[in-house]
Structures are given as structure tokens and as C-alpha cells.
């Protein structure tokens, strides 16, 4: 096995392996990571590629995730193209450095197969970890297939290293449900991959000595933080352009928001990640029973493509937002539901649903039950007031 793919080929890969494959083709200079389930197989694969000489990168062995990201930050300052990956507690341990990476405007790329948080310990999937990283100033992609994971890592480097962006980027996807599930993936030729995402990041020290990690007094700090606000605006614009260019070059269009049967829908469901394929089956079933249901899937989570969502939802009645994470103490407890509530300038009614916590299975039948429940109750007063905690024992779904 060699990392140089002379031409397009088809492989059977998990999302983790697909990410490793893309990183291997992108001529990354420095990789540092610490093992944690379900991320481990990405860096296992990369460690093997480096050891076999297939990938010419420095692989730094570290003692924690805090150190992994710190090592990568240092390398990025020096101009290296860098990669790291983590999940769950690892992402929490990195948290402090997440802010430093974005504050220093370093184009680090990280893969995050999402996982629930302790306590109690759960190695299984939900979105509690990634939702805690939402205000760290990182660009966050949320992909829903191994192919998309591969494609998005390639796009992520180009976006992160864009001169008008320079922000670290997370490519996240569902742990186990995707990280350890094998799917057919089209691998592009290494030449085409590097041509699409050429190394443009030169670091900060090329022109001589600089002071990094400086102190900003109250007279200056605010301006530096506002620079990040503007960079995120640029990132949204650039992400669209990069996705369009990717389609032109490789023939696959992922979009920032994907829709399914929304042309004439009354009720739509907004989801992220692997639940998308089950949702499409549930929508088909509802449609065959005469219900006008549609679906939206968010691929880019930060910056949030709210204008696009707004356009899709024009004239719709109800939007159901399904979250795999809980913001404790809120009446509307879904983090994504909250963001849609506050950002969306539209009269559409928003119903928050929490499901799949700690990888509690959500089948297409479950989603169909949610659709029926919303359809029957959408006009009853106070329906959108509270989050529906779907599938937890002791909370009944009144039909």
C-alpha cells in the first residue's frame, strides 16, 4: 500500500480511514495526537503511513490531547501543514488550546469523531463534545458519510489556509456510527488532491522574529477578537466557493446545507451527521402516507449558513431540530435548536427534539414517530415551548 494514488480509485473505508487517507495525500508536515476512542484508528493509520515512509511527516508522540494540540500549534506557527484528531474527553482537555489556536489564527485541521461525555463513562456517540467547542472560533464541518469525510478534509485545508480566513478547522462526524462503519469511497489521485489544496500557509516566522502569544490590553483585545468575527464571515463565503470548485474538479457536490424533498414541504426536520440517511427513509414513508415532510442537513456548522437555511424555510410551517446533545437548564434544551431559534428571521415554528444521547439508537421508524407526533400536535398551544426528549424511559410520547 502506498500513499501515491496515480489515478482515481474506489476503496472500502470507514470515515476514520477515509480521513487518514485524505491527510496522507495532502502532504501534511506535522501530526500529533493522543489515542482516544473512537478517534484512535485515524492516527493509528497515519502512524503506520509515517513509519512506512509513505507519508513524509513528523509524527510527534505526546502525553495528552492538551500537548497534542499545543505541539501542532507550535508547528503551525513555523509554517507546517498540521493535523490532529480527538474525541470526547480529549476534545475537552484540548479546550484551552482550541481558543489559542483560533486566536493565533493558525490553519490547523482536526478530525473529531463525536462521542458522549463522562460521567457516567460512555464511549458511544452523541454530540456533547463538539457542541462544547462551538464558541471556540474554529470552523466546524459536520459530515454524514465516509466519502464526505474524505472530501471535506481536502476542502478543509484549502479553507483554513485561505489568506482571508486563517482559522483552524474541525471535520466532525458521528463516532462509531461513521468512524467504524465501512462504506465505498472514491479516492482521487494524489496529484489532483494536492492541486486542489496546495500548501499556501507559510507561518509567521518567515520574515524574521515575531512575538507570539502577546498580551493585549483593554485598548487592543477587542479589535483582535473582532478580526475573528470578520474571518468567519469570509469563511462562509469561501466555503461555498471551495465546495463549488470541488464539484467542478471532482464531480461531487456536498453543499453547506443539503435538502431532501423540501420543494413543497410543510414540516421540515433539520439534522446533522449520520442520522440523515435514516431521516430520508422516514420522509419517504411519511410522503407515501400523504404527509408533506422535508429534510435539511447541516454540513457546515460554524460559520452557520443561516441565510441559506432561511431561504429554504421560506413559507414553511414547522421546523423540527434534532439535537444529539443537551444544554442543561434550558426550556429549549437542544443547542442547535437554540441557535436556529435565535438566528432565524422567519415566522416558522421551531420544535426542539433531543434524541440519540449516548448512542441510543434512532431508526427511521423512530424518526417517523417523531414526524407523526409533530404532525398531530403542531397546532396545540405551547407545543414548541419545551424540548421533546425522544426515547428516554419514563417520558411518553403522547400521540
Amino acid at each position, binding site marked *: 500500500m502506498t500513499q501515491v494514488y496515480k489515478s482515481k480509485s474506489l476503496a472500502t473505508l470507514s470515515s476514520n480511514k477515509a480521513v487518514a487517507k485524505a491527510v496522507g495525500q495532502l502532504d501534511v508536515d506535522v501530526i500529533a495526537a493522543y489515542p482516544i476512542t473512537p478517534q484512535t484508528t485515524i492516527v493509528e493509520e497515519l502512524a503506520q503511513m509515517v513509519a512506512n515512509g509513505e507519508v513524509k511527516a513528523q509524527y510527534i508522540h505526546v502525553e495528552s490531547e492538551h500537548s497534542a494540540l499545543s505541539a501542532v500549534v507550535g508547528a503551525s506557527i513555523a509554517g507546517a501543514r498540521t493535523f490532529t484528531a480527538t474525541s470526547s474527553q480529549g476534545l475537552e482537555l484540548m479546550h484551552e488550546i482550541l481558543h489559542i489556536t483560533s*486566536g*493565533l*489564527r*493558525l490553519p490547523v485541521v482536526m478530525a473529531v469523531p463525536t462521542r458522549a461525555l463522562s460521567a457516567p463513562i460512555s464511549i458511544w456517540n452523541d454530540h456533547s463534545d463538539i457542541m462544547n467547542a462551538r464558541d471556540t472560533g474554529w470552523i466546524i464541518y459536520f459530515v454524514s458519510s465516509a466519502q464526505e469525510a474524505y472530501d471535506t478534509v481536502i476542502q478543509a485545508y484549502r479553507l483554513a489556509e485561505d489568506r482571508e480566513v*486563517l482559522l483552524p478547522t474541525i471535520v466532525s462526524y458521528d463516532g462509531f456510527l461513521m468512524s467504524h462503519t465501512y462504506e465505498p469511497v472514491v479516492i482521487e489521485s494524489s496529484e489532483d488532491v494536492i492541486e486542489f489544496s496546495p500548501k499556501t500557509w507559510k507561518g*509567521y516566522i518567515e*520574515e*524574521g*522574529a*515575531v*512575538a*507570539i*502569544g*502577546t498580551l*493585549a490590553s483593554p*485598548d*487592543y483585545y477587542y*479589535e*483582535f477578537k*473582532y*478580526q475573528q468575527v*470578520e*474571518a468567519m464571515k469570509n469563511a462562509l463565503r469561501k466555503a461555498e466557493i471551495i465546495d463549488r470548485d470541488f464539484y467542478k474538479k471532482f464531480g461531487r457536490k456536498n453543499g453547506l446545507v443539503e435538502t431532501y424533498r423540501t420543494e413543497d414541504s410543510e414540516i421540515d426536520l433539520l439534522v446533522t451527521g449520520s442520522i440523515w440517511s435514516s431521516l430520508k427513509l422516514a420522509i419517504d414513508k411519511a410522503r407515501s402516507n400523504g404527509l408533506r415532510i422535508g429534510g435539511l442537513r447541516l454540513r457546515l456548522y460554524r460559520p452557520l449558513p443561516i441565510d441559506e437555511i432561511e431561504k429554504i424555510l421560506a413559507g414553511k410551517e414547522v421546523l423540527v431540530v434534532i439535537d444529539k446533545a443537551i444544554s442543561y437548564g434550558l426550556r429549549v434544551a437542544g443547542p442547535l435548536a437554540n441557535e436556529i431559534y435565535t438566528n432565524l428571521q422567519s415566522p416558522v415554528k421551531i420544535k426542539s427534539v433531543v434524541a440519540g444521547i449516548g448512542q441510543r439508537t434512532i431508526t427511521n421508524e423512530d424518526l417517523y414517530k417523531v414526524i407523526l407526533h409533530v404532525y398531530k400536535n403542531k397546532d396545540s398551544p405551547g407545543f414548541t415551548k419545551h424540548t421533546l426528549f425522544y426515547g428516554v424511559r419514563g417520558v411518553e410520547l403522547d400521540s
Partner: protein
Amino acid sequence: MKSRESLPSWYELPIGGISRPNITPESKAGWRFEKPVIDNEKCIRCRLCFLYCPDAAIVESDEKYTTKTGKTYNVSYKINYYFCKGCGICAEECPVKAITMVPEV
């Protein structure tokens, strides 16, 4: 002291709070009242001042220097007074007392 309104806007500042020489918002040497001066005759090129300087204000150059006693060194140390804050650590650490702190005014 400048008023806050006259300070640079967000788009005029370097990104990430990363400071490069000569593009720093204000002079960095504003509070110095004594400056270090190196006596090239006494200096033994041990590099301690260069290592100890907390602001990288000591510059190592390839300039050759021959002392009056006939000893030739391949490096010389100079002070970048644009950044030097006059803290005096170099003078304190110098093992041969080749650096003296000279009052600015």
C-alpha cells in the same frame, strides 16, 4: 497617552496579536531610563546576555572584532535600542562586567 479613538482599527492591526518588529502599535522602549552599553574589549562572547534578554533585544552579528590585546572574535553583540526596555538583566548577568547601564538623559 493617546486617546482610544486614535488607536488603530481592527483592520489596521496584525492578525492574532502577533507583533513584528517596526509594525508594533507603539514604540516598545518608552519607559527606558538607563540603556545598556557593551564594551567590546571586555566582552568574552559567552552569549549569556543574548540568552537572558527577556525581549530578544540583543542581536548576535557576524561582525569580526579584534581586541587591543590581539584576540579576534567572529561574533559581536549589539543592542537593539528600539526594543530594549532598559531592565538591566544583561548587565547583571554579564560575568566579566562588560555591560554598563548608562543613564538616558
